[in-house]
């Protein structure tokens, strides 16, 4: 709406801001292009020019409010039809080799369709923060298709993560602990009184809530007993409680003793201040920098607890903090493979690029959704960029930024329509605007003025600074 109201003068004024360099320019007209880029790149997947312009006209607080209040809780992309029906597992040994192979193939194809669905949503989501946070929780409460082995259950978990992505962390924790994909991934489904399995009990403390060093082995052992009996129904694939498998005895968790069940253990974990601090630290690394400021973490974590684990409240605090906007923290995070591929697709407006290819490229770059490498998730940061990944990212840029040549259909059906792309800037100096759209900091190698438009865009995309957000 703001965009529509913008008249030519307004746009010229906004463009004028960018001439002041890369330091944030806050004025009555709004946060300006650099701040808008920063806010949108950190909370979405590669902002587009219209989005940046829209947010540039808002103040920082208005922009943050808009991101947090507008967030949807459902995907706009229709999921594949098969997600509606849960097929109960079949013992493979009862099937013929041909049937086994057929089923494996169906499952592989469903995994592919599921990834295409999510990455399509990342590309099209009207509120990218929802997908950004859904991915954040996927990397926090990890589960992986290779082990869970049910695309339907992985879909349901994804819906759950999106539903709670910006709501209550405590509710999400209770729900995810009973989520069937999680029950399979961390062996809760086989955790019984006679044979407790500690996998979930350990990770819920180490990774999901307290963090390492804030619990003991004895706590893990007793928590595992409390979670016994949480299982899933074979026929429906839904959570069920099996009283016969549950250990109703006395447990001691973090110094408290009682006949706790799983929910009681989760409440004990949520009552510890370490839990909020642990989650806030992780959010800090996602949104601000790789070195959380402990005093700020403490302040935001206290607010997070006071607001009954409202994720929006923590994000509001984090995004409004001076650290988020500090110039020292601009362009210091490495783009994840998804930031990179979805961002490239969005920023170049590659309409004909097939999402299947985007999925494949993200996987080759090390981020295959629904299959994080292990329970700790993707390590992120500089680990995203070794020599292999860096060269591969360059190859992808070169391939996707090829312009359509007349009478020469491209094999991959790609077209970067450079002319309308340049026209979107509505400015004589489109180069300056393009740089503003693509890079968080000035490029290390300024493209020579004599280059053709497409070469200029490619030079910006191949600059090391393009890998940062």
């Amino acid at each position: 709406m703001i965009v529509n109201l913008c008249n030519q003068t307004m746009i010229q004024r906004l463009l004028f801001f960018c001439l002041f360099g890369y330091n944030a320019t806050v004025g009555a007209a709004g946060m300006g292009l650099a701040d808008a880029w920063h806010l949108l790149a950190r909370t979405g997947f590669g902002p587009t020019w219209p989005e940046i312009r829209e947010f540039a006209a808002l103040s920082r607080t208005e922009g943050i409010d808009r991101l947090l209040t507008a967030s949807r809780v459902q995907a706009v992309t229709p999921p594949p039809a098969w997600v509606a029906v849960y097929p109960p597992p079949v013992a493979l040994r009862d099937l013929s080799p041909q049937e086994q192979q057929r089923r494996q193939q169906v499952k592989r194809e469903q995994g592919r369709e599921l990834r295409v669905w999510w990455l399509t949503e990342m590309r099209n989501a009207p509120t990218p923060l929802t997908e950004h946070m859904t991915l954040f929780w996927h990397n926090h409460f990890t589960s992986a298709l290779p082990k869970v082995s049910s695309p339907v259950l992985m879909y349901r978990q994804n819906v759950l993560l999106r539903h709670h992505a910006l709501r209550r962390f405590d509710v999400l924790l209770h729900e995810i602990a009973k989520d069937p994909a999680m029950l399979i991934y961390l062996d809760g489904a086989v955790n019984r009184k006679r044979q407790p399995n500690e996998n979930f009990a350990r990770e819920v403390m180490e990774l999901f809530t307290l963090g390492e060093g804030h619990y003991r082995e004895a706590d893990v052992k007793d928590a595992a007993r409390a979670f016994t009996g949480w299982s899933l129904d074979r026929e429906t694939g839904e959570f069920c409680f099996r009283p016969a498998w549950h250990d109703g005895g006395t447990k001691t968790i973090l110094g408290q003793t009682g006949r706790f069940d799983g929910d009681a253990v989760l409440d004990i974990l949520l009552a510890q201040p370490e839990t909020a601090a642990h989650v806030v630290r992780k959010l800090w690394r996602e949104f601000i920098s790789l070195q959380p400021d402990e005093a700020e973490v403490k302040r935001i974590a206290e607010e997070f607890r006071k607001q009954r684990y409202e994720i929006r409240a923590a994000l509001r605090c984090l995004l409004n903090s001076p650290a988020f906007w500090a110039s020292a923290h601009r362009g210091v995070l490495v783009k994840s493979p998804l930031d990179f591929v979805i961002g490239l697709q969005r920023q170049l407006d590659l309409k004909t690029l097939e999402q299947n290819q985007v999925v494949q490229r993200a996987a080759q770059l090390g981020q295959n959704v629904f299959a994080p490498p292990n329970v700790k998730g993707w390590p992120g940061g500089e680990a995203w960029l070794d020599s292999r990944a860096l060269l591969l990212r360059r190859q992808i840029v070169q391939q996707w930024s090829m312009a359509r040549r007349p009478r020469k259909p491209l094999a991959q059906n790609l077209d970067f329509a450079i002319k309308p792309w340049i026209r979107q800037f509505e400015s004589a100096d489109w180069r300056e605007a393009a740089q503003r759209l693509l890079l968080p900091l000035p490029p290390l190698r300024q493209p020579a003025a004599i280059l053709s438009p497409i070469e200029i865009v490619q030079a910006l995309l191949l600059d090391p600074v393009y890998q940062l957000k």
Partner: protein
Amino acid sequence: MMMKRRTFLLTLAGAGLGLSPIRSQTAAPSPNRLLILIALKGGNDGLNTLIPYADPRYRILRPDLAIPVDQVVKLSEQEGLHPQLAPLREVWQAGELALVRGVGYPEPNLSHFRSMDIWETASASDETLTTGWLARCFAAHSPPANLIAAGVAVGNDAAGPLQGSANALTLTDIALFQQQARWLGLAPSTVPPNPALRHIVDVENRIRQAASQLKRGHRFETTFPEGPFGRALRTACEVIASRKRASVAVVHLSLPDFDTHVRQAPRQGRLLRQLAEGLVSLRAALRELGVWNEALVMTYSEFGRRPQQNANRGTDHGTASIQFVLGGSVRGGFHGAALDLTNLDGNGNPHFVLDFRSLYATVLEKWWGVESRSVLGAQFETVKLI
């Protein structure tokens, strides 16, 4: 954590088959010792790789899949190689092939992904580490300064054991790699004090430097096998041929497709043929380059396969298995101990006899002469194969 085992180092002297391995050469310790790792991805069936052909249990468990006795390449009165591994016989006879049996770990995980993770990060079964064991080794014991890269992975995949090392390169083909390096353009003259940006510029610089030092098109007398594995071995040998200009400590390759749940025999046979011919060509090429005595070749795989065949003439995920170690300085023969097929776990899988981290400790301590505890998290006994 240490293994319980019956006997180690059962060299084959006097086995009665006239195949006793003889140590041909003794290498002087060298600071430039090379490790070549080959990942057999998917879980190679160890029981049909080194076959306990004299064990009656073997034939009971494998009514269709057992290799007929007359086809086994017999190395002792108990054990012999799969017929497609016959090319390795000459390496065995030269005393340069160590067959390390029963390699696994406690509380085995049967998922490909997780178990490979355990092998490549050298973690315990219930522990998650995010860096590869070689990456930790290079972080703790910096490799010589003239190295173009501590590790080079040949192929398209990220190399697990090198995961997290700033000093690793991946390439499929030297010419292509050099082309990509040229496309990087010139190094920027100044870089702002931004750690992420510095990291990227460092990676770019390492690529440029390696590309200028790698020499392509070395003419080998050796013929490499056809196919992707043969091509990867050629690239690996070309990288190693560039060592005079700048050295490499580790080369990593993979041979995928070992997940033989259905109709195992033809597929595993084809893969083992590729492996054997590949290893023989690797040995020939490294001898040609005069570095065979400074090379240690080691295979690894996420797990072996279940002794009891399944209903589809295939095998399901197993546990402990056999790994190959080769090299001019290797003490050939049998190491570890044969699996006990009478004592299987709840899934019907054998118990391991030798922890895989003992192989890593051997590489670290005996091959490179560095301590292993800080890399492996505990002290593992070494294997006397060097």
